[in-house]
């Protein structure tokens, strides 16, 4: 199985090579190559996945030494160094494999329709094939080092795909922004890996799981803080970067400059989730570090809430989805943070499916009406029935309506959060954020639905041209919508107390296995947990339906005039609409004002100070001296020093040469004076 994983990764990578080298010359610009390749990967992944579903557990590894350097004989710090890499197939891997290959395949398929006729069509497929390879590689990696490598590969693909419309300056800016922002997280990630190497000498997950509980390592310190905490925070930073958490979330909305399938695949389903996946993979360490998890939880909770508030007022359909993604990722992070590790992972998977579906559907809409502004849409329900239906299912899922997958995972997360705050009342704010977000999510998602599909067409011309999409674009929508039902992951309703009779708990089984493998111990009182889950169920249902209801009366029935609300909440709306001014702060203040001026200063410093003073030195002083002397001696003016390090010497030389007056008796006076001086000197 572990070897199979290699092929799973290699297939899309080969497709990438083919596309880059000869893609343009193939029929249809070779789009079938990546599609088939990823389909191949999917087929290869399926047995693994099915085995998990059927047996409840899979486990296989494959390892080989990548780099090894002998160390100095006497051990000390210079012990030999090696990096062993390989693949790991366990429950998490299997689930991820299934999810990623499927999503990737569907989105590849979708792209053949969506991107049809675009410039650099073959390169688009090359990039997403490479991306798929990267994501799959990340999933099957058995150690953080290769995990990081694929993580970065994805980053570059993301960069390339966001900037796919490279003639658009905004796309280019967005791509750089995305890369740079995540790069900050990546750097921290690398430091985290370095820390792991320092503490454990390995980054292999399985080995780490064994080593982490060892108290010997607990007491290691790094930079004056416990090593676990340092590494944990660094990994958290990596997640914050990649999964667009506060305060590094700013790149994700901009990343919507890329083609919509890219948004679906990379910026919704897979890559951004990789950050959460990292936290899940390294959960034992985070848990052992103790101080990290609460911070993670807060990051997630705050992000979820903030992003949701911003999404309330956005008018660009993709931006709404982007903020919703950030918000949902915040949920996952929140889940992990409060120790609800399994629900977090579950949400990752369910979110991947329904969010991909949402994005693809929105892509379908955009493709159809050629705009992303929801204010120019409306009434598309009849024009695009399949799109509408699938999107509605996905929206119900994300809004947490029972029976849909989102409900299951979100509810469990909220339960976890509530339980956590019950055990630690100081953290009461977390569940409030969680539930508020749930309500807001329902609100803005339905706002999106209503604005897009319901009501009357606000732009007749565009509405007129709208049409349902061809089959390659429809099929993915349908499949993904199908996966948005709760029954895929849990019982038909998702409400445990109702569903416990239905034995489709493969997901829970798998996660229990995974938890066991990692050595995670469930803390807390089961009683409280149970209690909390029940309460959470009720509250989440209430807030979800409240959200939907409010949305409906505002945007569907127009009982509340949204414009009036906008006016009433003027400043608030302004802030939300401008996304809390994060971008303005980062770009306008931090980068432009502080950083770039610092750089300019350094460059100028390099030119002026280091070069001039130290090296070219004294030029100005020379010039000043010269200006004075020029009145007395015309010759000096003519004497131009060639620029160079000799200025100091030149001044000295110039001074000395003033003795060389050409008058021999003056020479002799100096000479005799020197002799006399020597006489006094030796006395």
């Amino acid at each position, binding site marked *: 199985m572990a070897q199979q994983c290699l092929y799973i990764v290699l297939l899309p990578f080969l497709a990438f090579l083919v596309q880059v080298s000869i893609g343009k010359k193939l029929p249809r610009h070779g789009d079938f190559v990546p599609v088939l390749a990823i389909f191949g990967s999917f087929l290869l992944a399926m047995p693994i996945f099915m085995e998990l579903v059927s047996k409840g557990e899979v486990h296989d590894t494959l390892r080989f030494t990548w780099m090894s350097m002998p160390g100095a004989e006497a051990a000390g710090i210079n012990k030999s160094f090696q990096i062993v890499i390989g693949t790991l197939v366990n429950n998490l891997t299997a689930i991820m494999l299934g999810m990623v290959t499927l999503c990737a395949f569907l989105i590849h398929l979708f792209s053949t329709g969506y991107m049809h006729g675009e410039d650099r069509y073959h390169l688009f497929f090359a990039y997403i094939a490479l991306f798929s390879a990267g994501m799959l590689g990340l999933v099957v990696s058995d150690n953080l080092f290769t995990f990081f490598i694929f993580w970065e590969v994805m980053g570059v693909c993301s960069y390339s795909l966001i900037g796919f419309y490279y003639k658009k300056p905004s796309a280019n800016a967005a791509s750089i922004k995305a890369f740079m922002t995540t790069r900050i997280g990546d750097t921290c990630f690398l430091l985290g890996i370095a820390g792991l190497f320092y503490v454990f000498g390995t980054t292999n997950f399985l080995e780490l799981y064994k080593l982490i509980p060892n108290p010997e390592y607990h007491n290691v310190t790094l930079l004056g803080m416990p090593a676990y905490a340092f590494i944990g925070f660094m990994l958290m930073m990596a997640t914050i970067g990649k999964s667009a958490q506060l305060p590094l979330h700013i790149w994700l909305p901009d990343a919507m400059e890329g083609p919509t399938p890219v948004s679906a695949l990379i910026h919704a389903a897979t890559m951004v989730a990789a950050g959460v996946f990292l936290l899940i993979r390294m959960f034992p360490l985070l848990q052992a570090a103790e101080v990290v998890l609460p911070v993670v939880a807060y990051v997630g909770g705050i992000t979820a809430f903030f992003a949701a508030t911003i999404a309330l007022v956005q008018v660009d359909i993709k931006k709404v989805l982007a903020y919703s993604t950030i918000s949902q990722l915040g949920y996952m992070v929140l889940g992990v943070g409060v120790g609800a590790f399994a629900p977090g992972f579950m949400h990752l998977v369910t979110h991947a499916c329904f969010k991909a579906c949402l994005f693809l559907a929105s892509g379908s809409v955009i493709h159809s009406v050629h705009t992303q502004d929801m204010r120019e849409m409306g009434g598309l329900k009849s024009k695009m029935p399949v799109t509408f239906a699938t999107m509605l299912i996905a929206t119900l899922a994300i809004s947490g309506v029972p029976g849909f997958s989102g409900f299951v995972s979100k509810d469990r997360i909220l339960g976890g959060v509530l339980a956590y705050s019950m055990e630690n009342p100081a953290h009461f704010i977390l569940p409030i954020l969680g539930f508020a977000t749930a309500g807001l999510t329902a609100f803005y998602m339905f706002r999106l639905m209503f604005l897009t599909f319901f009501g009357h067409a606000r732009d007749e011309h565009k509405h007129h041209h709208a049409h349902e999409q061809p089959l390659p674009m429809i099929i993915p929508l349908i499949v993904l919508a199908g996966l948005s039902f709760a029954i895929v992951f849990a019982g038909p309703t998702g409400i445990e107390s109702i569903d416990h009779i239905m034995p489709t708990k493969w997901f829970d089984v798998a996660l229990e296995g995974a938890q066991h493998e990692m050595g995670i111990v469930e803390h807390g009182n089961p009683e409280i947990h149970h209690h909390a889950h029940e309460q959470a169920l009720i509250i989440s249902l209430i807030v979800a339906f409240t959200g939907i209801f409010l949305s409906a009366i505002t945007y569907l029935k127009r009982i509340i005039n949204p414009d009036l609300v906008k006016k009433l909440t003027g400043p608030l709306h302004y802030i939300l609409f401008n996304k809390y001014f994060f971008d303005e702060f980062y770009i306008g203040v931090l980068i432009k004002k502080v950083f770039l001026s610092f750089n300019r200063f350094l460059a100028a410093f390099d030119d002026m100070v280091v070069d001039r003073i130290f090296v070219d030195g004294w030029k100005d002083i020379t010039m000043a001296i010269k200006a004075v002397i020029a009145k007395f001696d015309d010759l000096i003016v003519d004497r131009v020093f060639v620029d160079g390090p*000799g200025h100091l010497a030149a001044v000295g030389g110039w001074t000395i*040469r003033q003795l060389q007056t050409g008058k021999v008796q003056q020479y002799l006076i100096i000479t005799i004076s020197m*002799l006399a001086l020597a006489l006094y000197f030796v006395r």
Partner: protein
Amino acid sequence: MTPEMMTNLKLFAPEIALTFFLCTLFVYDAVLPSLRKTLFPLIVIVFGMGLAIWATADVATGVQTYFSGMIANDGFGNFFRIFFFATAAICAIVAYGSKELETSGRTEFGLLLLCITFGLSLMANATHLLTLYIGIETASILSFAMAGFARHTLRGNEASIKYLIFGALSSGLMIYGFSLIYGYTGSLQYAEIGKYLTAHADGRPLIVLFALFLIYGGIAYKISAFPMHFWTPDVYEGTTSPVATFFSVGPKAAGVAALIRFFLTACATKTGEGVWTSIPGLSLPNAVAMIAAVTMLIGNLSAIGQTNVKRILAYSSIAHVGYILMGLVGMEKTGLTAILFYLVAYCLMNIGAFWVVGIVSDIKKSEDLSAFRGMGWSSPTLGVCMAVFLFSLTGIPMFSGFIGKFLLFGALLKAPGFLWLAIFGVLNSVVSLYYYSKILKAMYFERDEQVVALDLLPLHRAGLVLLAIPTVVLGLFFGPVIEFAEKAVLSFL
């Protein structure tokens, strides 16, 4: 003829040979004046010098003084004899094609050259103050005439005047110093002086040190070391290139030899094989170190702003004296060996560089940097040779100048406490690159507006190449020369 007389004459054979050819030149010129415009004077000089070198090689055995202790015959002195003879021969060749010198004056030039060479030889070998005095005066007085050899040019004449006034005063000072030394020690022999000074350290009047300063001044004038260096740039610039070529090498080496011989014999005692200690009350190493530092600093810094290439080289020659003096700081044989090697390297590269300047100024009537523009392209031989000489002067490895510096600094580092001078010295050599590179820049990086073809005499071409080749070869295989120099130093009287 007593046997002693025979020995004296035998050991003096090289100079006698020189005198013989000098007379030959004189007599033939009187009889056949037309010969002076032919190759004849050159042939006589080169042949005579060759013979003199051969004769030197013949007498290069034993370490002794002769002519009643007036003059020494040792390896050290013979090294310099050969050096002077060779230098004279090369300079005769340099002068041969020069248009700055009148063809009608070839005999006079040759005579002066030979007479000066004779004086240099006396200087280097003198073990008696009178011999030293006559040597120095022979070299000086005739040099005054030689400096103004281009008698119709104001520049040449001015050079001569300056050289004269400076030289006359410095020799006057020196002779006064001699008289004081004589008064204190009662002797004119270096060795006797040294013995007396060593033995009578207590209550020694200050004036003895002053006398030593004055004597240093007289010799420093020949080597153009601080504070007697002022004449150098003016004279070199004003006089003709062949003369400057000779001045920058011959008298300088003789002065170095005289300096070493006088101070190591009269102001120091030999305390071991090739090790000397200065007399009590006078720290020669410190004094020399200071002088060396100041000299190289002045030479290098002053050269920076110049545009006249000959003047640049003049200043650089001052700087090189500074480097050479570093070899004396340690007062032991490695330093002296280094000095000798450096002089050989210096002879090759400095003559070469001045020669090129002479050739260029003959053709372009200018020694300014602008005259060198594009020369590397229009005349590759000249350009490459000049580049080799300049790199060697800078002290870049692969060229003999580097080995010279290498040995000098090595010797200096051996002497404890003079690290500062070593650092100072190397920094100075970095500075020197700056002005040498200006010449290189003009030759290679700039193009001349009108390309003047530089026609070289075959003799000059061959001569330059023959100077450039050993400049490189000595930079890579310097073993034999070092061994030779070391032998010379070890047989220092």
